[in-house]
C-alpha cells in the first residue's frame, strides 16, 4: 500500500529537515574543540538535556516499532514499552551520577577511571562500536519505511537519504547541535503523540466498514465437515471452481478459487460456530523465482505500470452490545471497550513452490479483544503460553535485556557528560523518565488506534503510527512523519557521535601510538563518522524486512551483556581488576553476538534457514550472557593480582586527556572545584599531597585518605560483613566481598 506523495507532506518534511540542518550548521561553530564536539563543554542545561534524553532514546524502535507491534499483535508490543522504561530506573538509581563523575567523553573513560589500561579502552571501544551499529540498523530500516509513503521513494532511497543527512549533521556539528535537535525532536514527538492519542480517543471505536472490509469478501457459513462440497455448490462460486491444492499449497491452511470472471482468490477459514466456518478473503502477492513481482490480489503486474496496491487494513469487527459506534471514549473506557470487542488482526504466510515462485498471503484473523490485550500473542512471546520453562525463558531473557540494556547504551551514557555536574545528571534523568514514560503510555493508544484505523499497510508493521495519522488528517500525517524522520536523524546522529568518540578517543589514540592535537581529534572523529554512516546505510538496506523494535532488542542484549557487568562491578566491587573488566566486556559482547547469530530468529529471518536448525535453545541471549558477564568479571578478577592502588590511581602518561592540576574531572572552562574534602590526615605522604587532591595520587600505603582517617571513614554498604575502615590495607586489597567501593572511597577520591 503506497500512495502518491502529498505536496503538503513533502513541504513539511523538507521544513523539518531544513530546520535540523540549520540548527546543526549554526551550533556547529561551538564544536571546534574535542570537549565541545564530544561533550558540548558540559554546559547543556539539565532540563534541555532531560528532554534530549527522550529525543535520543525514543528512536524509530519506540515510535515506529512498538506502535507497529501493538497494532499487529496487541499487548505484546506494550511489553517492550514497559521494559524500555524500566531500564531508566537502572540508569537513574545506579549509573547516572557515577557516570558523570567518572567519565569524560566516552563510556570507556568511565570504565578506565580507576585504571590506565589500553585493554579496557580497546574492549570498551569495540563494544561501543558493536552496540552502536546494532542500534543503527533499526533506525535506518525505520527511515526507509518512512520515506516510502511520505515521498514515494523506495526503501533504499530513504536509508540513503537519512545516512547522507546524518553524516552532514555530524560532520558539520557535534554534541551541542545534536542535543538541541534531540530536545526539539523529543518535545515534538511527545506533544504530537499526545495530539494523536487525543484524536483516537475522541473518535472512539467503530465497526464502520473500511476499504478492505468493503472489498474483501466473506463467504459462508458452511458446514465445517463438508466445506468443499458446500462451497462448490454455493451461488458465490457459480461458474467457478476450487483450485486444487498442489505443491507447497497442500500444507497451507488456505483455499484458492477461480471465479467465473477469471478472478483468482485466496481464502482463509475462520470458525463461525461449533460446526460451521466462514471463508474470509485474503490479500496476496506473488513473485517469481527471480523475485520480480508478478501479481497482486489476482491482478497481474504490467510492465511500465505502477503495481496494483494491497488494501489498507485494520478494523473492529464487533463492538460490545451490538453497537456500531461508541463515540468519544476516556482512556480506560477505550481499553475496556476494545477488550470486549472483536478485532480483525492480520497474519502472514509465505508459500514457496518447487519452482521457487513465492506467494505471500496476508489473511484475516478475527480475534477477541480480550486476547488482543493479553500476553503471548506475538511469535517472540509465544513461549509464555507454553508449559515448558525453556519456552518461557525467551520472554524473560528479553525483559531482562531491556531492563539492563538502557543503562549500557553508549549514546545514552555519553549524554551524562553534557551537563555540568551530578545534580544536573540526576535531574535530567528524571525529566527524561517523565517524557519517556508519558510517551510509552501513549504508544498503547497509538498502537491500538492503528489496529482499528483501517489504514495500516499489511506488509509493514513499522508504518502503523504514521498511517494512523494519515487516516485522521493529512496534515497530521505530514507532521508526524517529519517528526519520525527527525527522530531517526537525531538518534542516528547520537549513535554515530558515540561511535566516532570510541574510534577516536578509545581506539585510535589510546590503543595505537598516534597522538593527535585537539583539532586533529575532531577531524578524525568526523572522518570516522562518514565510515560508520556508510556502514549503517548498507545494513539498513540489507535488514529492511525486520521489525525495528525486534532489532533493537538485539542491541539491548549486546549492550547489557557487554557493558553493564563491567560498569556495575567497577562501582560496587573493590576487588575488580582491569583484567576482570576486559574479560567481562569481551566475553559478554562475543557471547551475546554469537548467541544472536546462532538463534532461531536469525536463522529464519536473516539466513532464510529453518529455525529448528538453530543452535541456541532460545533467541534472546540476555538471561545467559548477562550473568556470564558478571561471572567472568569475578573469576578473572580473582584470578589476577589485585590492582596496586598506587598504580591504579596514578595519572597515566598514556592518558589522551591529561588531568588538570586540580583533578581529572575538571573540564572545559569550568572553574576548579572548591575543595570540600575533609581535612587530610597529617600522615598523608608528601608525594600524594604534591599531586593535589586527585584520586590518582590519593592513596596512602594502599589506603585512601578517608580510609586512613577512621573518624571520617563512612560505613560500608548494608550487607557487607565488616566495616572496611578498620581492616588492614592487605585485607582490603584482597577482599573478595562487596566493599561498597562506590558508596565510600571512590566518591571522594573521584573528585
Amino acid at each position, binding site marked *: 500500500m503506497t500512495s502518491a506523495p502529498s505536496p503538503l507532506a513533502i513541504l513539511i518534511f523538507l521544513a523539518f529537515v531544513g530546520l535540523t540542518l540549520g540548527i546543526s550548521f549554526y551550533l556547529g561553530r561551538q564544536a571546534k574543540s574535542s570537549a565541545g564536539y564530544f561533550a558540548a563543554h558540559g554546559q547543556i542545561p539539565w532540563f534541555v538535556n532531560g528532554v534530549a534524553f527522550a529525543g535520543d532514546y525514543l528512536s524509530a524502535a519506540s515510535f515506529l516499532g512498538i506502535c507497529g507491534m501493538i497494532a499487529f499483535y496487541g*499487548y505484546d508490543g*506494550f*511489553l517492550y*514499552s*514497559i521494559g524500555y*522504561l*524500566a531500564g*531508566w*530506573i*537502572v540508569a*537513574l*538509581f*545506579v549509573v547516572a*551520577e557515577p557516570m558523570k563523575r567518572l567519565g569524560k567523553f566516552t563510556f570507556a573513560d568511565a570504565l578506565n577511571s580507576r585504571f590506565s589500561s589500553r585493554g579496557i579502552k580497546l574492549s570498551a571501544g569495540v563494544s561501543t562500536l558493536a552496540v552502536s551499529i546494532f542500534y543503527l540498523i533499526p533506525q535506518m530500516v525505520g527511515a526507509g519505511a518512512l520515506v516510502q509513503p511520505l515521498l514515494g521513494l523506495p526503501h533504499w532511497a530513504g536509508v540513503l537519504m537519512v545516512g547522507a543527512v546524518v553524516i552532514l549533521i555530524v560532520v558539520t556539528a557535534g554534541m551541542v547541535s545534536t542535543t538541541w535537535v534531540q530536545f526539539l525532536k523529543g518535545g515534538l514527538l511527545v506533544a504530537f503523540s499526545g495530539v494523536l492519542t487525543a484524536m483516537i480517543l475522541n473518535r472512539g471505536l467503530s465497526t464502520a466498514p473500511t476499504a478492505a472490509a468493503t472489498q474483501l469478501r466473506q463467504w459462508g457459513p458452511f458446514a465445517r465437515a463438508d466445506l468443499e462440497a458446500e462451497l462448490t455448490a454455493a451461488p458465490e462460486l457459480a461458474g467457478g471452481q476450487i483450485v486444487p491444492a498442489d505443491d507447497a499449497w497442500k500444507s497451507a491452511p488456505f483455499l484458492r478459487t477461480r471465479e467465473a470472471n477469471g478472478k483468482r482468490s485466496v481464502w482463509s477459514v475462520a470458525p463461525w460456530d461449533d460446526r460451521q466456518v466462514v471463508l474470509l478473503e485474503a490479500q496476496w502477492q506473488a513473485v517469481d523465482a527471480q523475485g520480480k513481482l508478478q501479481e497482486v490480489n489476482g491482478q497481474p503486474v504490467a510492465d511500465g505500470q505502477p503495481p496494483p496496491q494491497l488494501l489498507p487494513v485494520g478494523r473492529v469487527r464487533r463492538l460490545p452490545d451490538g453497537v456500531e459506534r461508541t463515540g468519544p471514549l476516556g482512556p*480506560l*473506557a477505550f*481499553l*475496556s*471497550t476494545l*477488550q*470486549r470487542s472483536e478485532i480483525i488482526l492480520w497474519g502472514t504466510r509465505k508459500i514457496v513452490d518447487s519452482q521457487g515462485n513465492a506467494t505471500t498471503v496476508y489473511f484475516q484473523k478475527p480475534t477477541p479483544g*480480550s486476547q488482543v*490485550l*493479553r*500476553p*503471548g500473542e506475538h511469535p517472540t512471546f509465544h513461549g*509464555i*503460553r507454553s508449559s515448558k520453562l525453556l519456552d*518461557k525463558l525467551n*520472554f*524473560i531473557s528479553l525483559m*531482562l535485556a531491556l*531492563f539492563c540494556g538502557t543503562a549500557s547504551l553508549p549514546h545514552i551514557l555519553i549524554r551524562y557528560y553534557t551537563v555540568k*555536574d*551530578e*545534580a544536573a545528571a*540526576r*535531574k535530567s*534523568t*528524571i525529566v527524561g*523518565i*517523565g517524557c519517556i*514514560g508519558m510517551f*510509552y*503510555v501513549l504508544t*498503547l493508544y497509538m498502537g491500538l488506534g492503528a489496529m482499528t484505523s483501517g489504514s495500516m499497510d499489511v506488509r509493514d508493521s513499522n508504518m502503523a503510527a504514521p498511517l494512523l495519522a494519515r487516516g485522521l488528517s493529512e496534515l497530521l500525517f505530514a507532521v508526524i512523519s517529519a517528526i519520525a524522520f527527525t527522530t531517526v536523524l537525531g538518534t542516528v546522529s547520537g549513535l554515530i557521535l558515540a561511535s566516532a568518540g570510541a574510534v577516536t578517543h578509545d581506539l585510535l589514540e589510546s590503543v595505537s601510538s598516534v597522538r593527535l592535537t585537539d583539532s586533529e581529534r575532531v577531524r578524525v572523529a568526523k572522518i570516522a563518522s562518514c565510515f560508520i554512516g556508510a556502514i549503517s546505510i548498507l545494513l539498513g538496506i540489507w535488514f529492511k524486512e525486520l521489525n525495528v523494535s525486534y532489532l533493537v532488542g538485539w542491541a539491548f542484549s549486546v549492550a547489557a551483556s557487554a557493558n553493564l557487568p563491567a560498569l556495575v562491578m567497577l562501582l560496587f566491587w573493590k576487588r575488580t581488576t582491569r583484567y576482570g573488566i576486559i574479560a567481562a566486556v569481551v566475553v559478554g559482547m562475543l557471547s551475546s553476538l554469537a548467541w544472536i547469530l546462532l538463534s532461531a530468529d536469525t536463522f529464519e529471518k536473516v539466513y532464510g534457514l529453518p529455525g529448528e536448525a538453530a543452535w541456541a535453545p532460545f533467541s534472546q541471549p540476555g538471561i545467559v550472557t548477562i550473568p556470564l558477564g558478571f561471572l567472568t568479571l569475578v573469576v578473572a578478577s580473582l584470578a589476577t593480582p589485585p590492582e596496586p592502588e598506587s598504580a591504579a590511581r596514578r595519572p597515566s602518561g598514556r592518558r589522551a586527556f591529561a588531568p588538570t592540576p586540580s583533578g581529572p574531572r575538571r573540564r572545559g572552562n569550568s572553574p576548579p572545584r*572548591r575543595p*570540600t574534602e*575533609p581535612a587530610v590526615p597529617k600522615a598523608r605522604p608528601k608525594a600524594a599531597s604534591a599531586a593535589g587532591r586527585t584520586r590518582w595520587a590519593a592513596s596512602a600505603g594502599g589506603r585512601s585518605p*578517608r580510609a586512613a582517617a577512621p*573518624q*571520617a571513614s*563512612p560505613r560500608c554498604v548494608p550487607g557487607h560483613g565488616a566495616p572496611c575502615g578498620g581492616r588492614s590495607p592487605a585485607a582490603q586489597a584482597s577482599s573478595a566481598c562487596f566493599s561498597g567501593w*562506590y*558508596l*565510600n*572511597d571512590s*566518591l*571522594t577520591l573521584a*573528585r
Partner: protein
Amino acid sequence: MTSTASSRRARLGLRLFAAYTLLYAGFVGANAFFPDRMEAAPLAGVNWAVLSGLGLIVTAFALALAYGWMCRDDRGGPRPGERP
C-alpha cells in the same frame, strides 16, 4: 558535594532500585507463569496485564520524582548534624 551526601544518595538510589526491581520481576514473572490470570479485569473493565504495565510506568516516574525530591538538598555540603 561531600562523600557523605554522595554516599547517602547512592544508598537511597540502591534501595529504590531494589524496590522497583522487585516490582518489575513480579510483573515479568506474572506474565511468564500466570498469563491467563493477567486476563482478569479487576478495575474499570481493564485487565491485570494492562493495569500492571501502566502501573509500572507510573511507579517508575513516581520513584524518580521521590528520589529527586529526597536529594534536593544535596548540592554541596553536609546536612545539619552530619560529619562533613
